[in-house]
């Protein structure tokens, strides 16, 4: 009997699978046991023919056991370990060979790319075994440090290596570097909307969640998409965190270091967004980890979907529990929610009259509970510009990379300041830290006292204003939060009722 390692994916983790092969006499047949899915059951044909291309003729009854026996296994990535196990059992490759193998076989012996390269590399590092992957997975596997990994394009090449006839090149650790690629749309392409642009700059600098309210056609979606271009590039750790999830879902790698941007349609289910299913797949929230989750027309989402966002927005991770087990996925996102000011979309518009009754408007916003709104620091209102106003505007707007530079500087200030508290940005500030270490200046304190009564700020509303003001001060490079910063933060307080 021979034994080597394969793996199967569960959520964003790779679990080791021992592949045991035993050859007994009799007529030729292959049987696979160990809770294998259909793709694995069918692998016997791919394995038999691709081994045949190397001149290995199989005889007798071959039993393949996938252990642990009670773990459901899925996917064609077990083709390669089964083939290697059989080759080892028939004596084609030496007895002492061991390692983790993953890959799907083609009938001519080529190896096809599979999903889960990054989790597999983590598993190999943990077990201390060499990892053999198809050439298509080389990019994701080489993102993990301290792994002995090899890429091969066909099964013949792999067997030559295992027999010691021709050595494969060990993969080097490489991470994709940040490239200066223009993100469409650039902030310079957006005419007007100075207030919204400034708001998004603050959001990017302090990692604040954003709410965009504006009439149809005012440019909410375009602004949300442009935000991606002013976010700082992913750091090494963040890149790997993000890639681990992408890789487990079989999504192509992004070669630059732009943060993920996931735009979710309002018909999506809670499972699609939070993750789940029989195999506990990560959802859109996790795919947007370290990036942006954009919920356009948030009032059209199902209420349970919106409420499901509460806990992950607070904790930065989400635990999905199903009958088949539970898994925790990272879900630290910058949420952008957008909606119209009323069902017809034209409340407070200068040209078109709104046709909604106050009851309609109430119902429209009923979906957004207080707890959700409390987690969104910046409320930006997007005016719908009239044609005359659009023509009036000068077109010398700043481009995204200039703004990104300021954002990165503000981020590094925050990182330095909050280092001892284990938080990275102002959005994560807790009530307790804010009370003691926010750094309000004297005039700031006086201003805060004067507005508290006149604007009827609630406790939560006040702490949102303070967080945003801290970020504005960081953008300006000021140590203390002054009254001017607080005054600007007030302008992003929002609310849905307009003084009419």
């Amino acid at each position, binding site marked *: 009997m021979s034994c080597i390692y394969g793996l199967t994916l569960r959520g964003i983790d790779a679990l080791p699978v021992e592949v045991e092969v035993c050859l007994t006499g009799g007529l030729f047949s292959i049987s696979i046991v160990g809770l294998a899915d259909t793709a694995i059951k069918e692998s016997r044909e791919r394995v038999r023919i691709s081994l045949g291309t190397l001149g290995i003729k199989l005889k007798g009854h071959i039993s393949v056991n996938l252990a642990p026996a009670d773990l459901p296994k899925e996917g064609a990535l077990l083709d390669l370990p089964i083939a290697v196990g059989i080759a080892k059992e028939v004596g084609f490759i030496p007895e002492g060979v061991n390692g983790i193998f993953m890959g799907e076989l083609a009938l001519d012996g080529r190896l096809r790319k599979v999903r889960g390269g990054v989790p597999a590399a983590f598993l190999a590092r943990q077990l201390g075994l060499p990892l053999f992957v198809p050439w298509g997975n080389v990019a994701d596997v080489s993102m993990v440090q301290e792994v002995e990994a090899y890429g091969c394009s066909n099964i013949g090449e792999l067997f030559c290596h295992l027999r010691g006839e021709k050595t494969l090149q060990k993969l080097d650790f490489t991470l994709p570097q940040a490239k200066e690629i223009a993100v469409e749309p650039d902030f310079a392409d957006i005419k007007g909307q*100075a207030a919204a642009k400034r708001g998004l700059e603050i959001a990017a600098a302090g990692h604040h969640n954003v709410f965009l309210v504006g009439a149809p056609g005012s440019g909410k979606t375009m602004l949300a998409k442009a935000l991606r271009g002013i976010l700082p590039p992913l750091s090494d750790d963040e890149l790997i965190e993000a890639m681990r999830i992408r890789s487990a879902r079989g999504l192509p790698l992004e070669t630059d270091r732009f943060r993920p941007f996931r735009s979710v349609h309002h018909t999506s289910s809670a499972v699609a967004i939070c993750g789940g299913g029989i195999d506990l797949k990560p959802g859109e929230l996790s795919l947007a980890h370290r990036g942006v989750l954009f919920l356009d027309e948030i009032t059209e989402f199902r209420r349970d979907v919106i409420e499901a966002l509460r806990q992950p927005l607070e904790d930065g991770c989400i635990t999905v529990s199903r009958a088949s087990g539970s898994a925790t996925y990272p879900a630290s996102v910058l949420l952008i929610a957008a909606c119209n000011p009323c069902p017809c979309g034209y409340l407070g518009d200068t040209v078109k009259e709104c046709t909604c009754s106050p009851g309609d408007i109430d119902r429209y916003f009923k979906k957004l509970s207080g707890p959700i709104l409390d987690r969104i620091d910046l409320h930006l209102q*997007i005016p719908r510009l009239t044609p005359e106003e659009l023509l009036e505007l000068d077109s010398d707007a700043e481009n995204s990379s200039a703004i990104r530079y300021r954002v990165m500087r503000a981020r590094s200030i925050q990182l330095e300041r909050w280092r001892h508290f284990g938080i990275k940005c102002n959005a994560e500030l807790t009530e307790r830290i804010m009370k003691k270490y926010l750094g309000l200046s004297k005039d700031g304190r006086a201003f805060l006292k004067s507005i508290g009564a*006149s604007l009827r700020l609630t406790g939560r509303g006040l702490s949102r204003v303070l967080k945003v003001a801290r970020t504005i001060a960081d953008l300006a490079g000021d140590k203390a939060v002054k*009254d001017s910063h607080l005054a600007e933060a007030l302008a992003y307080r929002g609310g849905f009722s307009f*003084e*009419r």
Partner: protein
Amino acid sequence: MKDEDLSVFLALNSLKQFDGNLIAALRLRSIAPSDLMSSPSLLREFTNSEKAMERWYEVLSSGWHLRELESCKKKGIKILVFNEEGYPSSLNRLSNPPLLLYWWGRLEGIKKFAVAVVGTRRCSNYGRRIAHMLGFKVAEEGFPVVSGGAFGIDEKAHRGALKAQGVTIAVFGTGVDQCYPSKNLPLFDEIKESGALISEYPLGTKGMPWNFPERNRIIAGLSDVVVIVEAPIKSGAMITGRIAMECGIETWSVPGRIDEGVAKGSNLIIFDGAYPLVDVDSFIHLIKGSPEGFLIGKKEDKAEELPPEEKQIYEMLREKGDRTVDNIAGECKISPALALEMLGKLESRGLVATTGPGRWGIRF
């Protein structure tokens, strides 16, 4: 008036057949309310409607009128009968004054010079702003404001008056104990405190579409000046305006843009002879009868004490109306961040507010 007589009038009013003229007719034939009680068939002399007679007998036999009086007393709702003490004499100008009024609130303001501010529910931001300003300034001078209870112009006029801590009167097309539209309940409670909710309909009457035009004659009748803020051609405010003009009540209308349906009626009524309201302050001067007459009066300037940057923005918004941050930053030649900062400061002073998504304007 004795309770028995009051209940007779409540019963008569519930038939929806009679107006204040009935009182004169009864007096002409020297029929006292108690006579109607003892011989109900006397009423046949005043109506040809079989249905009304049927209902009359039904009311008297079931004792509805007694229960109605009882529940009015319990709630503190006063009943003012035509030509009796307390009944607003200004309603006599109408050809069909209400037989009686349910009056919930304070009786002050009945005898005073009152100003009606009416307009459509679906009004523009401009209309809301003017209604609020009118309500505020009229009430500030001590004149009661009269209007309906609907959203839009009515609501804003009441709110303006309440803000000035003045007297405001809401005339309902439903029973006074009904809250229609229900979202205005807090507003009505506030009005009850300082002014009054009034109606000619029995308690519990739901809002029937034909009640509201009828109600409008009371708004006009109670007032000495009627101002139409914004009204399309077909609207309740136009009915109020027409009634006012027919009765010789001074009628004003706020000019609106001529290409907007929402101001078509209020513009038309100017053509038909209403005074155009071109300046709120001079309007106030005129109704006060002050010697300055049609001069633009003195204005207290809120901008005077502001720091220069805030003053610049405040004055710009006052001159040019609602603006986006782009406009403000461009026209004042400052950065958007600074513009937002100044708007935040002005907002905390209660001088500006958002009037629509991303648009800022001054507050009154």
